[in-house]
């Protein structure tokens, strides 16, 4: 069909070449792709059913890991498992198929592709053409980086708006249309330059395939960057409130807050990792010592009292540990913990129970914050297990967002929501006057490297929940999408044309 079927063998065949040939074998490619299918299937089934795990768990244990355990019970129907005795159920749960994890498969594919490129997809350009190709490739990379940093955002946007104004269609298309088209156009621009570079380097026949391969690499890279750097959080605001921090999703901390005489408060936070550990935590400045007793990844509150707890809210509420919520249910886990407090001198201050369900923002303000109090050495502390707090700040200071108005529009003749939106005032660090903005579904706000999305609202319908995401590489997939689309388009169209030009009856092949 094309160059790939017949490897271009060089006359010499050293050990390195042999190894490359093995590594770059297309059979390995197919094997790795088939393995990834099994992995994805296993990861999907693991999220479903009564014994399903949360998406986060599946992602860490199956996709973003070196080796994965694909549990056999996830392939069996729930009804079948439930019909067994508890012992049999536990027995069944124990079996798993060890499999290559997502990182391993990704890396192996990367090496496979690399070896294949060294062997079969070699750069054919020489001398001037090679230099020109490399120069254009450099241009493409520079352009790509510019796009990723948002440097072209306005340029193409304005160009498009200009074109639209000429055709007089501007008023009929909504904002989101232009916004996305703008980004795809930026991606297409990069993709076109990439194509030019690859065409110079690899020639007409192979440029398309190399493009497709590089788009896959770029997607893997973006996923890696997300894995390493992306931060998901929420901001909960009632009308009239303002906040300069966000609540990190799925990460928690114990805050010990001391209200100072001048009306200020001083917070000390214990991160989740320490709370889930066993070692004692010494806080000499506060004159406190903490001994974490138990960490529940997911829990619920019942009436009764938590065994062993002799101080605070846990005396009147029973904290029960629950299995983690599965990925299909989309309910987030509600962690809880038991912590023993003592004074500097070792005198006991009581065993406290903390639940994330005491935190107002965590439960979408269905109840107010439930602080627990602790007194020690004449100082008063308020305690709260809350989502890890991240302040919105840069060198110049903090930014804050105030919710002016929250509005829900419903479909006529229906309770279904048509849209909901938050009118906000944004005060950027170092700015004195706030700037007005609106966030609604599919119309996020991007500030300080973070993106604020309309995600939900309080059940009283007078407050908003914004999803806040920090991901430096968010533009990469746009570029990658257009590289893949252009590459495949060029490749498949050239195959089709080649085929149609071929004479003979029957047409095909």
């Amino acid at each position, binding site marked *: 069909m094309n160059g790939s079927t017949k490897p271009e063998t060089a006359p010499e065949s050293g050990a390195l070449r042999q190894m490359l040939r093995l590594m770059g074998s297309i059979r390995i490619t*197919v094997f790795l792709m088939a393995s990834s299918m099994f992995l994805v299937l296993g990861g999907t089934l693991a999220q479903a059913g009564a014994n399903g795990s949360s998406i986060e768990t599946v992602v860490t244990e199956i996709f973003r890991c070196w080796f994965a355990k694909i549990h056999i019970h996830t392939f069996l129907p729930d009804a079948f498992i439930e019909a067994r005795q508890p012992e049999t159920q536990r027995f069944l749960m124990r079996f798993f198929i060890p499999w290559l994890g997502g990182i391993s498969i990704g890396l192996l594919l990367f090496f496979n592709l690399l070896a294949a490129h060294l062997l079969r997809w070699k750069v054919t350009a020489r001398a001037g053409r090679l230099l020109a190709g490399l120069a254009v490739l450099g241009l493409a990379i520079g352009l790509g980086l510019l796009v990723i940093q948002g440097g072209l955002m306005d340029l193409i946007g304005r160009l498009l708006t200009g074109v639209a104004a000429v055709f007089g269609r501007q008023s009929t298309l909504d904002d989101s249309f232009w916004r996305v088209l703008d980004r795809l156009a930026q991606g297409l621009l990069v993709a076109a330059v990439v194509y030019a570079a690859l065409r110079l380097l690899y020639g007409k026949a192979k440029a398309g395939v190399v493009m497709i391969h590089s788009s896959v690499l770029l997607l893997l890279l973006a*996923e890696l960057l997300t894995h390493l750097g*992306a931060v998901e959080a929420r901001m909960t605001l009632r009308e009239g409130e303002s906040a300069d921090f966000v609540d990190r999703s799925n990460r928690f901390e114990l805050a010990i807050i001391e209200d100072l005489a001048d009306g200020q408060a001083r917070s000390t936070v214990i991160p989740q990792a320490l709370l889930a550990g066993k070692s004692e935590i010494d806080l000499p400045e506060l004159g406190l010592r903490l001994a974490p007793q138990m960490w529940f990844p997911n829990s619920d509150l019942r009436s009764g009292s938590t065994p062993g707890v002799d101080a605070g809210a846990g005396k009147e509420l029973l904290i029960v540990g629950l299995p983690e919520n599965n990925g299909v249910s989309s309910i987030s886990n509600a962690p809880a913990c038991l912590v023993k407090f003592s004074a500097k001198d070792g005198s006991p201050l009581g065993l406290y129970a903390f639940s994330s369900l005491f935190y107002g923002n965590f439960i979408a303000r269905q109840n107010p914050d439930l602080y627990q109090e602790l007194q020690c050495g004449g100082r008063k502390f308020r305690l709260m297990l809350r989502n890890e707090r991240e302040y919105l700040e840069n060198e110049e200071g903090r930014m804050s967002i105030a919710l002016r108005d929250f509005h829900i529009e419903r479909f006529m003749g229906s309770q279904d929501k048509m849209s909901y*939106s938050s009118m906000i005032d944004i005060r950027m660090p170092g700015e004195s006057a706030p700037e007005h903005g609106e966030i609604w579904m599919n119309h996020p706000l991007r500030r300080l490297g973070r993106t604020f999305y309309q995600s939900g609202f309080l059940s009283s319908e007078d407050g908003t929940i914004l999803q806040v995401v920090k*991901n430096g590489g968010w533009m990469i997939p746009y570029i990658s999408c257009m590289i893949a689309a252009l590459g495949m388009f060029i490749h498949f169209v050239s195959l089709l044309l080649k085929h149609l030009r071929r004479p003979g009856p029957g047409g*095909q092949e």
Partner: protein
Amino acid sequence: MKTPSKLFVVISVLAVLGLLGAELYARAFSPRKLKPVEYKTESGKTSFASSWKTPQDLDLAATLPVAHLGRVKPLDSVARHGLTVISESQTFIDFDGQKRPALLWLLDLASGSSCADEHRVFKIQNLDLLRKFGLDPRPGDFRYSLAELQPKLEEIEKEYPEISAVKPKRRNAYQNAVMSLSSKISIHYTLRNAFGFVRDPTGIDLAAYKEAASALKSNPDAPFIVPLPGDRHWQLLPLAQVEGISRQKYDPAAEAWFELLTQHQLLRSLDFARHQLFLAGLPEKALAAKDRKAPDTEALASARRLADMLKDLPGTKDAGAAFNAALPRLLEAAAAACKVHQERITKRLAEIDSELPAARAAAEGEGDIAAASEKLTRLRSEKQALGKEADVWIRAPSIVPHEATINRAALNIQCIVWYFIALVIALLGWLVWRPHLRVVALSILWATFALHTATLILRIWISGYPPVTNLYSSAVFIGWVVVLAGIVLEHFWRANAATPVAALAGAMTLLIAQFLSLDGETMKALMPVLDTKFWLATHVVCITKGYGATFFAGGIGALWILIALFDPAGKRTPELDKGFSGAIYGVTCFAMFFSLVGTVLGGLWADDSWGRFWGWDPKENGALLIVIANAILLHCRWSGMVRLRGLAVLALFGNIVTSWSWFGTNLLGAGLHAYGFTESGAFYLSLFIASQLLLMALAPLAREKRSSQS
């Protein structure tokens, strides 16, 4: 393969077009007549009830505009959707044993006529539940009237709380049947109450009445039928009545509705009473044959009383005429209300457009930027809201009458039938007269494809959305893509191989769509996160094209295995097999393109809406699996690891992966189509996968014919 003469081709095309056109005309445009029934006693004498006629102009009544489930649609659509959910059918058997349209059922229900509870429309197939009701199973029909259910209904209703507590996925068949019946009954009452009004409002407790009626406002199934010039939202009839009483003047639209429903109730109650009387006069044998129960003496007495009373009422004879006279009044009132809003919206939009440039300049310039930018945001969001209102008051009312015609044409069913005919003829072509039958099958495919395209265009026109917005429309669109691909391929590769695959896929996907439409409204309003036309038009369309192309490649693979196994009439040549190989390969290239680009676009949508490109959730993973399956096929082919037989097997594997991604991932999460799909859906999905596995297992027996030189 010999090509048939031009004349044959022309005749075949003309004949097919003629047949299809005639059927379409007969369905959609010829006026509908409801047959009046001649009641005859055994002696041959015409009885009392023979004077029954259908004087109501149902065709015009079908076009009355109603706001329901988030959009404005004809009354006919409300009736069809309601009856489909309750009865899984768009027609019902009237008390006289005749098949009648859903609209008549809705009007009976809405007007509170005495026959409404007698219509056998509630479909119950669970034998345990039927036993509890003390009813006999009615094989082939399984439909029961509310009157039949009523005696034991209270007892069954006591089980609701207990069953509701059980998670939907954990319910057994009986519990599912109870919950399904409960939702059907609640829709029955919602529809009845939303049209209901107090016939004699003197002395009623207005506040209590208003409160009861207001509860309907939050009921998602309630139709809002009164368009008011002074209100942005359509109103419920009972609330419009409360309003009218307090203002001492009814709105013209509400008044026309009162008249319409009152006259309908009069007509149908009288007919029903006459029918009861007539039945009472029939001999036992005739009763048994008709499977209608004779009214007991008490009912008979009341029927007689009613008939006597109604017969002498002034104006009874003119009830039909009065009904018909109310129709144009109602349509005029609705049009007048729309016009008021239309003017308001157009005027305000023009104002905003003229204010926007200045506001934009102010927000970017010097001065009080905070106030200026707030003004700009307000203008923008008002403009957006007005755009949605324009949909309700300007766009929709102009389409409503046509939607009623489109409903009547039942294009989906017509397409299914004709695709099957094309399939049979194309398969026959593999046994005899291949060149000629190929042309006939292809002309039918072309014509049916045109109809299929029309359904898509009409849907886009009516809903104002890109073609795919939900599972139902994805089925219609996937079928369309496959048939299009089939037609194109058949013209390049004249082997009569693409036609049967395309025809089968077209018929099957439309059948699936028909099955999915049992949930009711297929153009439901979208959740806010999905309501972005750009993504619906790009991501969803791309990904469904990917599904369609993958299915098509799989279908060609299946056809080759079948042909190679049976090798009908020694038709196979090396060239033919080469063609099959090329077709599977070429179609998979398309599938790869659309599924990869579609999947990445889906990630971009997720990034745009939630700030994450890829979240590993089941639906995303399903799409990824299709991409990888296609990539495997292409790499195997490029490397020469497989030949035709391997390609066919891999393409069938693609079928399994795609069907699982399309439906299987929905099965993982309960509640998405809890009773419409999961029960039998899982069964049919397994059946499909098993059939593909069987074909894959048979593949080793199939031999590829190769030319001697290769």
